[in-house]
């Protein structure tokens, strides 16, 4: 069994989720059908909706099931922009943090390119924390032109927990809706949609022990959205498509299980994370922790997240060497072609491209234990030494070749 330190990418299916999934997969019925099978499936979906609403601090009619976090982000950001912009064409600005996941970042960039949106990238501090003063200045300087504000609840790379309550309070003064991508936060730290003041909040099943392919957008009852996809009019006419009964049931079971155990499990995982950080710091003194230091501000970092930059090496070299030793980590966030690029999150935090290339994220979850931390700490010094030896791919190779040999001695 490899040491799995990539729970932020996906975490293994939890027991309750597996039970709900397998039980529902063996049954049939379209929740929109009007006969007995349909009603049975509908009842499962509605029960899941109530469970999810309860653990997320929302009303059940505020739960819009989606195929996952990315769809929820697209629906919220595009839907809010289109609805607000249609109601008042002067509202074409989107205020967005500069450390968003690609699901929000690229959606906003698409709106800018194709739909006439004007995007304001809000700066963050050196730990990746949103600069509230910048948000306030943008709002004070022209709230009438703002369509929406979107700020993630917790960052997927460096684990920084954003001041969502302050963001919504600032926006509320001007009556501006706020969306938050809470994919990493929900289940890891206490999250209440009702208390947050958010208009919309994205959550995902597989980051909390549910299956991949299901998520939800929590959407305030009074919030108007223009749908992204059209069809049968399911989910408040906002998200058409046959509801995935089994996945939804499993998602709700996972969410209930995780949120119920969150206080104790959060503390346990934070303890492991602290041991991991201390271990890495002593094994590799050069390593630099990125994001909030949990020893200073435990509330401002996700309990399962540890993120370092390792000077003088490529994150992908380190990942490769650790993988060969049976330790699975990440350079930050997965991406389509598997091409590691310097993280926009680290660049927004003020790191140089070179420093950002040495990133490695270790994320813990419900299957993690002390042995995982010990194995990482034991393997890291050698892996780091080798990765450093391999150097930076951006640097000129030291291998002498025909066009680099300008002296005559080797010719």
């Amino acid at each position: 069994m490899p040491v799995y330190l990539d729970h932020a990418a996906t975490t293994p299916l939890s027991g309750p989720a597996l039970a709900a999934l397998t039980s529902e997969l063996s049954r049939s019925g379209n929740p929109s059908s009007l006969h007995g099978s349909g009603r049975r499936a509908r009842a499962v979906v509605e029960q899941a909706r109530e469970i999810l609403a309860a653990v997320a601090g929302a009303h059940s009619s505020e739960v819009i099931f989606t195929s996952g976090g990315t769809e929820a982000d697209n629906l919220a950001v595009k839907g809010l922009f289109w609805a607000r912009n249609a109601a008042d064409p002067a509202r074409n600005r989107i205020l967005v943090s500069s450390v968003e996941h690609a699901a929000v970042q690229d959606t906003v960039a698409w709106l800018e390119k194709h739909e006439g949106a004007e995007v304001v990238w809000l700066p963050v501090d050196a730990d990746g924390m949103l600069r509230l003063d910048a948000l306030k200045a943008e709002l004070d300087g022209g709230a009438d032109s703002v369509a929406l504000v979107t700020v993630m609840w917790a960052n997927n790379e460096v684990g920084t927990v954003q001041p969502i309550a302050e963001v919504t309070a600032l926006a509320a003064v001007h009556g501006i809706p706020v969306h938050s991508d809470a994919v990493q936060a929900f289940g890891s730290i206490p999250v209440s949609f009702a208390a947050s003041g958010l208009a919309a909040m994205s959550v995902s099943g597989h980051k909390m022990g549910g299956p991949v392919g299901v998520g939800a957008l929590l959407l305030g009852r009074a919030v108007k959205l223009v749908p992204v996809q059209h069809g049968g009019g399911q989910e408040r006419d906002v998200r058409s498509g046959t509801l995935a009964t089994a996945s939804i049931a499993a998602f709700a079971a996972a969410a209930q299980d995780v949120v119920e155990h969150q206080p104790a499990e959060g503390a346990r995982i934070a303890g492991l994370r602290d041991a991991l950080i201390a271990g890495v710091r002593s094994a590799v003194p050069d390593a630099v922790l990125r994001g909030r230091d949990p020893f200073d501000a435990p509330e401002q970092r996700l309990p399962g997240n540890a993120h370092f930059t390792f000077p003088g090496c490529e994150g992908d070299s380190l990942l490769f060497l650790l993988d060969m030793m049976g330790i699975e980590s990440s350079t930050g966030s997965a991406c389509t072609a598997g091409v590691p690029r310097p993280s926009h999150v680290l660049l927004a935090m003020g790191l140089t491209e070179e420093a950002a290339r040495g990133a490695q994220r270790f994320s813990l979850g419900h299957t993690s234990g002390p042995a995982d931390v010990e194995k990482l700490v034991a393997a890291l010094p050698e892996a780091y030494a080798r990765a450093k030896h391999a150097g930076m791919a951006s640097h000129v190779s030291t291998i002498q070749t025909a066009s680099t040999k300008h002296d005559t001695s080797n010719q």
Partner: protein
Amino acid sequence: MRVLAAMSGGVDSAVAAARAVDAGHDVVGVHLALSRMPGTLRTGSRGCCTVEDSNDAWRACDKLGIPYYVWDFSERFKEDVVQDFIDEYAAGRTPNPCMRCNERIKFAALLEKAIALGFDAVCTGHYAKVVQDGNGNMELHRAADWAKDQSYVLGVLTHEQLRHSMFPLADTPSKAEVRAEAERRGLSVAKKPDSHDICFIPDGDTAGWLAEKIQMSTGDIVDESGAKVGEHPGANAFTVGQRRGLKLGTPAADGKPRFVLEIRPKENKVVVGPQALLAIDEIRGIKLSWAGEPIPQALAGIPAAGLAEPAMSETFDCHAQVRAHGDPVPARARVEMTDDGGGSLRAELLVTLIEPLRGVSPGQTVVLYQGTRVLGQATIDTARSLARPAL
């Protein structure tokens, strides 16, 4: 051995990796990301390093049961290959970017990283053969299938680079055989078209691509006597041997078509002349390297040992090839030490072609062979027809 298989996503590198696995090596597949903005899908035989190529390489590794990674060399590629390509054209030369990529990326940047990470060799799907002589010296030879032979684009590799290179397709009788083997192995890339053209110019329009990168200005087209016969929109857009698109106002005295003989970037002039003057008899090459031990001394009967700084070699017989799929022609070559203009000596390769070659441009690489063996190479600095008086 621990072997890093460089996987382009094509059939050759997939079969090469498969053979390395069969040979009992501990193989890891690596795809080189060479573009920061990879395209999504390939279009026919054009382009390279798309997400589709990456996925094809990935699926091949899955089939072979070996790990797969993507390593980013986009910055190095941009500087060492793409920028070099632009600079060379801007200087009026015709570079070979594939050769440059082998020299600086695959068998330098990638190889260096591989060795540092614990690998012994880099394996590619090139059709060429590395053998070791009795003294443990590496030699590079043509592949068994001369039609597919790629020893030319590897001719720039040094002894040290060859020592860590593995080309499992060396003895394959034909490309068809490789495709059949891929099919047998269940590799989905078995029928994938071969790559052509320059990978970073996906639409194949090199002149159009260069026009965006190089400042072009109008100048004169002159004939071999120096007389103006027309104007051009930018000298760098022309290549030696080109006939079309010259739009000459003044016809040649003999009424026969004229060809680009030479590009003079400093004067922004394009020199044209009759086809006969395209035949090149003499090449001078710089930046030479030997694909193995420094050999011309040995060839010339001078003991190789202890000759780190050859002053000048005897003339030796060989065959010269100036493009990837060009025919080798008989030649005689020797190394000369000349003043580089800055007061220090540099080695130059003087190649006399016994059978003249057409369309030879500065910037191209001349690779020397003896039989199947690659001796070494040089970048062509000047190429001239002895029938043509100097201007």
